């Protein structure tokens, strides 16, 4: 389809602005715009049609089943969109005086209290904009905590298992720590013996996702926490998989000192095609003094922004964080109350049901009960029929499903990481299983069907190599290249897609 710039026609516009009868003011000549930006020129009907057509070429949880592992693609309740648009929230300036933001602060304070209870920890900052920024904030808290104890120079190492999301090692580098890897054992837990050898007085902490990206609860988590705490180090919980354990097991009770929560996963902030998200962090009392400013505190019936935190790491984002995300997640949690436990139970039930139905047709690297997600391997299909996990993923599209996460975690070859979430009906789960089983049969009988998939999407398989070799990252107007020249084959790449 056309780009909006290709629909553009000089002289058209979609906006009419208010005009006031005021003298014109000139920008000093040396600062004046010399050439106007080539923004699209379309009338309003064309604008709406363009973006509606684009939306028809996109797939969301509203469109269908979206079992993208580790992304927790659950239904996003519509009432949350209604309440976030209340003018008292939507049109509120973040620098409004405190007496004019009491409702916003009360909502933030209430959400903090809820997250502290769910995590089993003492204090919460809502400020980080996403899970990865929560990680960065948590690691900065570790820096501040050890600096305060005079141990920052000594404690350089952060331990991360080989199943971790790539954000964990990237966050370690961005906060000036060094990475130490630890292996996974034959049951999919952290290899405790390997771990013991790597934790000492130079260790600052562990970053762990539990349940892990394999969808498995680490059976030695208490022992692991003791190893780190005995060494004077801290435990960081990557909350990407918190949807498995709300009301069932709390990170604080597992021994974690710092937790980030992905509000766009567990607590249903719609992800908007890549964002927004929210990455609040919850911490133990000993780390509270270092949390970002401002803190949101309650004094009697009044809520205040407290900047007087001399040991705070500072600010990690503007204002108090992505407030609209808080409104939606708060509304979502209030719809459940203590029944958040049932939410997690059903998420785990759905995942185990899919696992039970699929493990005959695909390899299961760790044969255990799973939590909210599980990882299969298409290694056998690849070996026997030459069809990869990527081919399975692309073929699923033809059956009307979004593919699972593929090629992650890195320790499972040809990985397919499947997370159904709690909101799906049994009929949907069954239809997905039928599709997966049919694809396993097709791999044997008609492998080309997989290798050339998808067949039923607005585009065929896309060439990622071509995109990387000649990076065309904006429209070039008159000079826009025609990439179809010389097109021979489309090379999609067997690399992590998801999380």
């Amino acid at each position: 389809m056309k780009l909006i710039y290709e629909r553009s026609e000089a002289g058209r516009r979609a906006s009419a602005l208010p005009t006031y009868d005021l003298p014109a003011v000139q920008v000093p000549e040396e600062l004046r715009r010399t050439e106007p930006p080539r923004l699209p020129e379309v009338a309003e009907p064309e604008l709406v049609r363009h973006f509606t057509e684009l939306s028809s070429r996109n797939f969301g949880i509203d469109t269908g089943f979206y079992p993208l592992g580790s992304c927790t693609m659950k239904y996003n309740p519509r009432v949350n969109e209604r309440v976030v648009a209340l003018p008292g929230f939507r049109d509120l300036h973040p620098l409004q005086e405190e007496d004019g933001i009491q409702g916003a602060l009360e909502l933030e304070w209430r959400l903090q209290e809820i997250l502290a209870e769910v995590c089993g920890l003492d204090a919460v900052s809502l400020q980080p904009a996403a899970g990865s920024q929560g990680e960065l904030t948590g690691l900065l808290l570790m820096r501040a905590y050890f600096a305060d104890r005079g141990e920052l120079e000594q404690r350089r190492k952060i331990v991360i298992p080989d199943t971790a999301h790539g954000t964990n090692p990237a966050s370690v580098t961005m906060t000036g720590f060094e990475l130490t890897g630890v292996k996974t054992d034959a049951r999919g837990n952290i290899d405790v013996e390997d771990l013991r050898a790597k934790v000492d007085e130079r260790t600052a902490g562990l970053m762990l996702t539990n349940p892990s990206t394999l969808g498995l609860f680490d059976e030695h988590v208490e022992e692991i926490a003791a190893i780190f705490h005995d060494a004077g180090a801290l435990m960081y919980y990557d909350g990407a998989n918190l949807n498995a354990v709300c009301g069932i097991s709390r990170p604080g009770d597992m021994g974690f000192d710092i937790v980030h929560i992905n509000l766009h996963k567990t607590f249903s902030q719609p992800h908007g095609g890549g964002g927004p998200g929210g990455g609040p962090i919850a911490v133990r009392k000993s780390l509270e003094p270092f949390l970002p400013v401002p803190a949101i505190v309650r004094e009697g019936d009044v809520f205040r922004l407290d900047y007087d935190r001399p040991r705070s790491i500072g600010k990690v984002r503007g204002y108090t964080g992505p407030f609209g995300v808080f409104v939606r997640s708060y509304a979502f949690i209030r719809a459940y109350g203590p029944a958040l436990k049932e939410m997690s139970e059903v998420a785990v039930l759905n995942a185990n049901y899919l696992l039970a139905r699929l493990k005959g047709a695909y390899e299961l690297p760790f044969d255990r009960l799973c939590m909210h997600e599980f990882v299969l391997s298409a290694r056998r299909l690849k070996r026997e029929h030459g069809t990869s996990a990527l081919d399975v993923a692309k073929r699923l599209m033809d059956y009307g499903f979004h593919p699972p996460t593929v090629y992650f975690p890195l320790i499972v070859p040809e990985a397919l990481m499947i997370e159904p979430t709690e909101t799906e009906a049994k009929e949907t789960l069954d239809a997905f299983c039928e599709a997966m089983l049919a694809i396993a049969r097709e791999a044997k009988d008609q492998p080309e069907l997989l290798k050339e998939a998808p067949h039923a999407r607005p585009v065929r398989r896309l060439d990622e190599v071509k995109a990387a070799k000649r990076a065309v990252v904006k429209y070039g107007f008159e000079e826009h290249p025609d990439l179809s020249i010389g097109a021979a084959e489309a090379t999609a790449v067997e690399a992590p897609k998801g999380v």
Partner: protein
Amino acid sequence: MTHPYLSLTDADRDEMLAAIGVASIDELFREIPTGVRFSRALDLEPALSEQEIVEHLERLAAKNVHTGVELSFLGAGMYDHYVPAVVDAVLSRGEFLTAYTPYQPEMSQGVLQAIFEYQTAICELTGMDVSNASGYDGTTVAADACFVAKHVTGRSKVVLCEALNPQVRQVVKTYAPGFGLDVVEVPHRGGTTDPDELRVAARDAACVIFQQPNFFGCLEPAPDLAAAANDAEALAVAHVDPISLGVLEAPGRYGCALAIGEGQGAGNYLSYGGPHYGFLAARSEFIRRMPGRIVGETVDAAGERGYVLTLQTREQHIRREKATSNITTNQTLLALAGLVYLTWLGPQGLRELGETCMALGEYAKERLGLPLLFPERATFKEFAVRVGRSGRDAIREARSQGVHPGYALGRDYEGLDDALLVCVTEKRSPADIDRLAEVLGR
């Protein structure tokens, strides 16, 4: 009773448990050590029905004083520009709203093409060659820019102009110890930055970040500031207001290496500070150092045009500890709002909007008749005045009459306790400004 967001009946559950081969849901959790099983109910308030949720949140929202009930001249980085209905219409499409990051391009051509169009719009506004798919907000993109500059130059000093938004400076300072950066600030001189002073500070620096128009609304001598940075072989980074770029020159045309900014004013509601989008654009030579997602054009197996996430080896899921950033989630939906908004405005609308804001600003300066804090400087959309008493007192008095007169600069700048930063967007009419003059006068 089944929860409205859950779809399994009791019979479904029984059948599924049987298929799994366990007797109860509880048994599914048998691998969690008993020592870390949570044994009581979560101490949360009881579940609410949808109607009760709306009523409860309406009560909370009613405790806030928003721009619909108070005539507000508050800006200081977050702007009350009009958001057209087409933005709401597009963002309410579930296909956009409820999609994850477009990892599987054949499922996500809509959002991928939209991001490509957004990247084009940001490059057009800023005069740059490449834009990422958005950052968290206008503060974190500044930290991102410092990280890029550190790797490009191998230097660890970053220079921030004091007239750069205090929120932005605070965030850069928070990130600095982790990045191994030393932050140096250059004071403003009469509301803007002195290029000669900046040239000295920029020596051995990785980058210099200035804001145009700056936090005081003043127009910086931006080409001279960029030249000062370039003389020192530091990257010149401009933090710009997208709404100004119909009338102000694009940073790419006066020697900047990167252009960053807060997108909120272009198509996002105030929303008490978020979620919004930050933008980050650069000259092509820095493309492999860019943080975050970038969408590129390609073709499919039939030779048809399509879009994919590209240059992903920069990113954490492949390069892990050597990645250019840890960012994964960005602000795509808000950036989409920005694209729809800029499409709605078009080039003509953007210019008119800038001109209107400037004309209203001059009208307000004259109408208020208060001494300007920086009388020598040209301004855009915002300007600072002295109110002859504590700024916070002036705000309190004005608000008691239903007007929020602006931002108390004493919150961030020593010696400016009597100064207010007044913001006029196109939503404030001359009559509104007359009302402000009435209230602020004594």
